[in-house]
């Protein structure tokens, strides 16, 4: 775990340092006074992050210093559940998030939230209490929608589908 983690951290900061900063942090032609350029700080932090990542990898090789780099055993977090099952559950959750974001403009914020909440209750395993889960999934977004739109004047997206059918 320690080596993988160190490598991931090194690569992550490396991408920022060598790809993202040159592309997305332009240096202005004129910098007032002796002020450092805008890329100075992100560069410094990325270099520090990369150094820490390399240090984590290096320390993971020695038994003496392993505790500093890798204080935890990943299996204690994972338990006995197979990795495929964990990844599937994670994948469904991310898909539900993505579908929620994608559906807001079509179905509107309220209906999308109800569907998201239903999906989450199914994924957490609480859906076996069908009545309570269904009441929560419908009533909570409705109450929140009414509260925010009437009391705080929030304008939630209605959804093109509902607009098209004239609601």
């Amino acid at each position, binding site marked *: 775990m320690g080596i993988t983690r160190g490598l991931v951290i090194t690569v992550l900061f490396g991408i920022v340092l060598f790809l993202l900063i040159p592309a997305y942090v332009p240096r202005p032609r004129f910098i007032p006074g002796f002020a450092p350029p805008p890329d100075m700080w992100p560069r410094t932090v990325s270099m520090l992050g990369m150094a820490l990542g390399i240090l*984590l990898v290096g320390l993971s090789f020695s038994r003496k210093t392993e505790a500093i780099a890798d204080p935890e055993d990943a299996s204690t977090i994972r338990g006995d559940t197979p990795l495929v099952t964990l990844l599937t559950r994670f994948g469904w959750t991310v898909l539900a998030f993505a579908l929620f974001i994608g559906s807001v403009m079509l179905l509107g914020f309220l209906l999308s939230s109800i569907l998201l909440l239903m999906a989450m209750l199914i*994924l957490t395993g609480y859906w076996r209490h069908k009545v309570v889960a269904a009441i929560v999934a419908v009533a909570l977004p409705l109450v929140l929608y009414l509260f925010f739109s009437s009391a705080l004047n929030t304008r939630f997206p209605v959804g093109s589908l509902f607009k098209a059918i004239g609601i």
Partner: protein
Amino acid sequence: MLNDLLVAFQAVATIENFLIMAAGIWGGVIIGAIPGMTGTMAVTLALPFTFYMQPIPSILLLVALYKGSTYGGSVSAILIKTPGTASAACTTLDGYPLAQQGKAGKALNMALYSSCTGDFISNLSLIFIAAPLALLALRIGPPEYFMLMIFALTTVAGVSGRSLLLGLVSACLGLLLATVGEDMYGSFRFDLTVDMQSGLAVAPVLIGLFAIPELLKIIVFRNNQSHKPMQLGDNRVTRDELRRSLKAMLKGSMIGVVMGAIPGIGPSAAAFSSYGEAQRSSKNRENFGKGELEGIAASESANNGCCGSTMIPLLALGVPGDVITGVMLGAFMIHGMTPGPMLFENNLHEVYMLFIGMLFSSVLLFGAGKATMRFFSHISRIPPGLMAPIVLALCVFGIFSISNSMYDVIVLLAMGIFGFFMFLFAIPAAPFLIAFILGPMLEENLRRALALSRGDPSILVSSPITWLFASLAIFVVVVTIRQQLKKAKV
């Protein structure tokens, strides 16, 4: 000062403010009592609602939530042996054995008395220490501020999680993310989309990082069982028991005040230190861990003793010592107030209102805790599988309402996934968040210092104060590494 406090008293003592604080205390206790829900989550979830409130009531709401959740953590610690918050872990040691003996009510009452005592003493310390410290802070410039923030970040990175290196990695990630958007001279950085030109707002990053990973943990690892709580049983704390625990309570409060005022230390460490000290100095030390009321008094007074004093570095220096004060810093800024020495110059009336409100909230904590102890004992039954999706709905609606923008909701969910990966890699979230909040200030002070010195970095170690903070940061690094190596040998 007394006159100012009296004027502030009049301004705070309104029904509206009392209702807000009572709601905060109750909400905090409820959230704190649910295992897996933390004080941080309580405060972050309330943040979007504060956008629509006046500055001081909104800060008071957050403070009340913090205090309520710190006490609330003891409810589930005592009744179901699962601390609602990390700082209540120590309370489990004696609280649960007492509950098993049919004395859960007694344990809860002792936790309440101790929490209120610690809280009140902590508030007094805030009132008397913050202003003089702010006066001192007025004399320090950008290099000193930069070093102070480096010290705060190092301490937070050192004590959060189990590895200093991972804490520092977390801080670097936070600092990097804080650079997204427009910088102090008007240059845009990492503007991959048009929305990103305005940067990442504090609320979605913060809520995403702390609330959403909890949901993901429940879904992915199915850690979803609910617990059967103990009955309250024997309720009263006798005068003799109270007198016997008073020493531990007062000592715990002082430990909480001191440890809360140091950035990064926080209530968990304070509770364990206070417990250790109470055990060392008690006549009943062999009874600790088997159901000793002094143990509960020590841990609960210490963790609530941090509540007021964590605000000292925030108000006086503008440096949050932990995640909750980090959220409060965000709330202050949302309302156009910048914590730090200038707050005492520009918003003195508001500061005094905050002080008075915090004193009131100690009293309210006692009232709310007493009146609804029986009700709170049922809260710990709510299964996480139901609670986590409810929290998600609150987050999504709350975040959207802040700026009527789906961009913030996307940031919220993306940060949730990012936070989950941080959890998988055992990278602590607290340094990330403190760094994200302090990042712009840190960079601004560094760039200002370098501009003042015409690019010479030696300005960062040019005064005794910068040396002091640099030495303290190095000291923290050395001590933490030594401790980690020692632990590894054991």
